[in-house]
């Protein structure tokens, strides 16, 4: 699911494309590429944060209770 995530985290965030793209479709494609990479820059760190211990405890407690 995160095939691009590592690459995106390692790359510096590029500036939004603009001058180079002259055709609408090319401009949209270039923007979409930049957007995908920048969204990973912005939010991959959120997904990578550790799960709160109390949440894991909640799940583990339920697993233990049901396993009995």
């Amino acid at each position, binding site marked *: *699911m*995160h*095939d691009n995530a590592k690459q995106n985290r390692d790359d*510096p*965030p590029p*500036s*939004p494309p*603009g001058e180079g793209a002259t055709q609408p479709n090319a*401009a*949209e494609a270039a*923007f*979409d590429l930049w*957007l*995908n990479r*920048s*969204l*990973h*820059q*912005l*939010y*991959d*760190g*959120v*997904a*990578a*944060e550790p*799960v*709160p211990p*109390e*949440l*894991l405890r*909640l*799940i*583990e407690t*339920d*697993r233990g209770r*049901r*396993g009995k």
Partner: protein
Amino acid sequence: MSSAFHAELVALLPRLRIQALALTRNRAAAEDLVQDAVANALAAQDSFTPGTNFAAWMHRILRNRFISTLRKQRDTTDIEDLPAGAFAVGATHEDRLVLKELGRAVNKLPVDQREALFMVVLQGMSYEDVAAATGCAVGTAKSRVFRARRQLQAWLMGEDRAGEAARPDAAQPEKRRPSSSHLVEEARDA
């Protein structure tokens, strides 16, 4: 089945956090939403059919929990957060400014567009899975992602094609609503 259920749930937590952030735009609220959704899922796990789409089932629980919370807290203060990535120490000052601007623009998107965009771009979900998780047609899921991209392009590049792109769905023309209120209306109409 119980052990597999719990393992799948733990593995899905990072994605649920992203979906919760897409819905709430606030880190603390997102953490609360994930916790509540997990509690709901544990209580309802016997209703899950093994072998079916667990991620879609779980995303729906989180979404419904969000809608339910919205109903109760319509008038609470809406505090938006920018993700920590907007403050990355490795980036140049100019890059950080661009990322902050993007973060603010993403927060301005209609909630269903932001949710679909995050699911596709950040979670790598297919349009079919987005549709299953959000209870819409596949074409609507595609439309939401397309409109989110074009709206962000319009805002960030100064191209004012915004009016068209901001509409929540191509198939269901309606005025743009900046809040999440139409999710509540969707749920009520369902």
